């Protein structure tokens, strides 16, 4: 790729950083060129986040219909699955799965609630009073 063809499409890194792209300058030599972004990257990144939003929406539906606890919402929001959440909360997966159900969630004590809230970087209040 030639230096003057390095795309400068604003998008996911806007206002935060520019990324190094290797490109050929006028003398035929490679150099590092800073790029603001590239539209195909914006498209696929957006798609990934759209899928995450769909996971959150799905969790919210389940919570509303009484099939899931607020933990499911925050798990989706923090891009986790049961395996990763279990790893963070240092509990076996089957226990986390139980807490994802409203019945198991109600049995959590204050300390356990605080642990979950800490991992999701929210307050216990936000965890308990989620209104999806």
């Amino acid at each position, binding site marked *: *790729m030639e230096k003057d063809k390095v795309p400068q499409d604003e998008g996911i890194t806007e206002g935060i950083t520019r990324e190094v792209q*290797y*490109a050929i300058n006028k003398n035929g030599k*490679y150099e590092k060129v*800073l790029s603001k972004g590239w539209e195909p*990257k914006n498209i696929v990144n957006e798609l990934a986040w759209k899928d995450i939003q769909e996971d959150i929406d799905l969790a919210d539906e389940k919570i509303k219909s009484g099939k899931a606890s607020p933990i499911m919402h925050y798990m989706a929001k923090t891009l986790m699955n049961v395996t990763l959440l279990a*790893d963070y909360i240092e509990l076996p997966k089957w226990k986390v799965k139980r807490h994802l159900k409203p019945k198991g969630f109600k049995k959590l004590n204050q300390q356990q609630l605080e642990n979950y809230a800490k991992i999701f970087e929210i307050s216990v209040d936000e965890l308990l009073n989620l209104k999806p």
Partner: protein
Amino acid sequence: MKLDFEHIPAGHCENGVISSLLKYHGLNLSEAMIFGIGSGYFFAYMPFVKLNGIPIASFRPVPGMIFTKAAKRLGIKMKKQTFRKQPKKAMAELDKVLEKKLPVGIQGGVYHLSYFPPAYRFHFNAHNMTVYGKEDNTYFISDPVMEYATTLTAEELKKVRFAKGPLSPNGKMYYPISIPEEIDLKSAIHKGIKQTADWMLTIPVPLFGVKGIRYLSKRLRKWPDKLGSKRAAAYLAQMVRMLEEIGTGGAGFRFIYAAFLQEVAEVMQDDRYNELSKEMTKIGDKWRKFSSLAAQTCKGRSSDPDGYNTVANLMLEIADDEERFFIEIKKLIK
């Protein structure tokens, strides 16, 4: 205390950190040179390793390998430490090394990187950055994929170093402890190129090297039919992200490799490497075309097999190009 450490933005984190650490100790080797010597160029399709539930197509070997191989081939000794479930010790040890006026490379998860573009903050744990100082509760960070040097609080850095999930860093930190006076660059380059050529041409498993590209091409054609339009788009999108998202320097490291070959031409005083660099640029351009076409196909989440067939055909072309390329380069290093 802030060390006199130069922040150099790089295409890729692992090479960038090593290159900057060596520079601090007086050894000037570019990111591209480290990448080539460490055999960073690769292709692997791993249906059994999943990221976000999607099989991984990788354009580089497993994290840490470039680093280990480059150091070994250059005769550099690195001190490496991990601290399983000992975050306090990990932070104390980092402070101790910084006190000795040594910048330290660390592995970390990007999810907790407060300075990172939010769009990139996934649970990916094989990121690398350099810590080059500390004042009160703030650490000075040189993250190669960022345009400018940044900072993290002690609490943030601890989270980054102890991110959980696949490839969890367990507080991993590293720094050079001995660098030889004389470096046999030519021999290191030969070893690096030879291994890459062997990996790309001769691994007897159809998932790796040029065979892997052909295999994935075959699989990819079936995605819309097998997975449905939505999943197929997610699969294809992830491939584009592996090629282009933060830290490949463009086209899944193919352009960094082309830059490496230009440097090799100079070191070896052999213009044939410049010719090969041009070939590699063309290969990189084709991967860019792949990303561009694939993104368009993903955008509409269309299940039209045409979009998938087009990129699958392009992959076959690229596989042939890469095969020819590595057969040619192997002739030069005999």
